């Protein structure tokens, strides 16, 4: 029987939960544990948009701009958040507080527009509500 720490993705998620990203020394250890060249490990990690090999901001802000949210004005929300944070898609603030990502469907299409702050999902947002949430991120 496989244990969940035999599963690569689960192991990597757990490392990321500890460090906030996958540091290089962990990639070395993963290579040993899963008996794979480091390039394969690195290649697998880089495939997934939620896995990071560099430090991210303390808060990862994900805004869905897929069709259903787009019809609910997610683009305006996105512009307001970009303006407030001074960040483009994929950028991290210099104080390492925020990383901003424009993402595809988050599965809350009936409650758009939506924004995820780390693990927490905020639905039916207005620009004002979104900025309030961001102001509380310290």
């Amino acid at each position, binding site marked *: *029987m*496989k*244990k*969940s720490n035999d*599963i*690569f*993705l*689960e192991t*990597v*998620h757990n490392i990321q939960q500890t460090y906030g990203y996958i540091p290089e020394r962990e990639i070395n250890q993963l290579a040993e544990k*899963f008996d*794979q060249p480091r390039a*394969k490990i690195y*290649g*697998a990690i880089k*495939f*997934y*948009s*939620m*896995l990071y090999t560099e430090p991210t901001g303390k808060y990862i802000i*994900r805004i869905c*701009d*897929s*069709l*259903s949210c*787009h*019809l609910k004005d997610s683009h305006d929300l996105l512009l307001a958040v970009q303006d407030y944070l001074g960040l483009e898609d994929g950028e991290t603030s210099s104080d390492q507080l925020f990383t901003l990502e424009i*993402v*595809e*469907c*988050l*599965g*809350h*299409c*009936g*409650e*758009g527009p939506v924004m*995820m702050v780390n*693990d*927490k*999902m905020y639905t039916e947002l207005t620009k004002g509500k979104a900025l309030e949430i961001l102001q509380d991120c310290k």
Partner: protein
Amino acid sequence: MVIEKKFLKGNPLKDISEYDFPGLRRALSLGQENVIQEISDSMLLGRGGAGFPTGTKWSLALEQAGDKKYFICNADEGEPGTFKDRFLLEERPLKVLEGLMIGAYAVGADEGFIYIRGEYDLPIKIFREILEDARDEGILGKNIFGSDFDFDLTLVRGAGAYVCGDETSLINSIEGKRGISRIKPPYPIQEGLFGNPTVVNNVESLACAAEIINKGAGEFVALGTDNSRGTKLVSLSGDINLPGVYEIEFGCGTLEEIINDLGGGVSYGNKPKFVIPGGLSTAALLPEELNCGYSYEDIEEAGSSLGSGAIIVVGESRDLVEILLKVSRFYMDETCGTCFPCREGNKQINFMLNQHKNKKFTRQEVEIIKDIGDAIAAAARCGLGQTSLSLIESIFDKFPEELIEEVRHSEKVRNR
């Protein structure tokens, strides 16, 4: 008047101490062949989007030789507009677990995985707790309910890759590889996870299977149409007044009735510009095409597909080019890159769509887009590529006046 028909929906069911797993108990007393017979009799079609008969899949998996088989629940819901699996994972997770265990028992798998997309934080938390409780209660483990059925289930969190909803990509992902699709055959039921026969089923399919074994195939077969039995969870979103997850008996009404009676009508303008009946990978339908019944066969006849059951309504005065760009960016970002016509084609299409002049395209540009689309559909290994142009092509087909620049008469003369 279309109303909901509740076969899968019900009170929240999350606490393992309050649930007796009647479907699983019945399955264990029926025996493997009889369980599969009952699922085949129910004519259940896979609810993830492809619509493959679940009974056939299980029976092929049972026939496979070998001691080691795997059973996977695909909870990597990512088709834009779809949120019905999340509904089940959050509200009725024990039915999903029960269906998964019935399937594992039926095909002879002793080990399983539930692969939940990484963005679904609440479902992940719910399942983590359920798996712990189920192990403590002996619902997972050895000799389940006193039978000779042993089974353990592991939760795997996805990490943000839409393509992992494809079963072969999902298998690669669990194996710790890049989530790229595999060449078929061999199909997963022949050679899947770690080279062993593997069944991959969608969340809703498994919840259906649990209810079918619990209530009997008869009740399920009695619902729906000849070719679409039972009910379907539909995710309504977009320009609609009452978005949400609704359970609909196949054939109980038309798309238009679903949008008006359950969805409360269009919220942006007076009527839809078009409706996407099954998620971003399905062709658009015009308002006059919405009087088709809600079933696999009727929507196919109307020129689209029921897909994942995600109905997205797009209001009358929406900008088509903006929508085309949104759709094409999705496929450009989410293609896994293995089949190069899909990787390069979707990129080129996004590039070409960005070159519009005053929101218009020339006939030649549209032909090139269709050509690339045909190449992708013919060459792509998985459903992502094969259907990546369905919506974009249908929008060009259905709104030529709005999107295609007519060659002016004077130019025609000059070209002669």
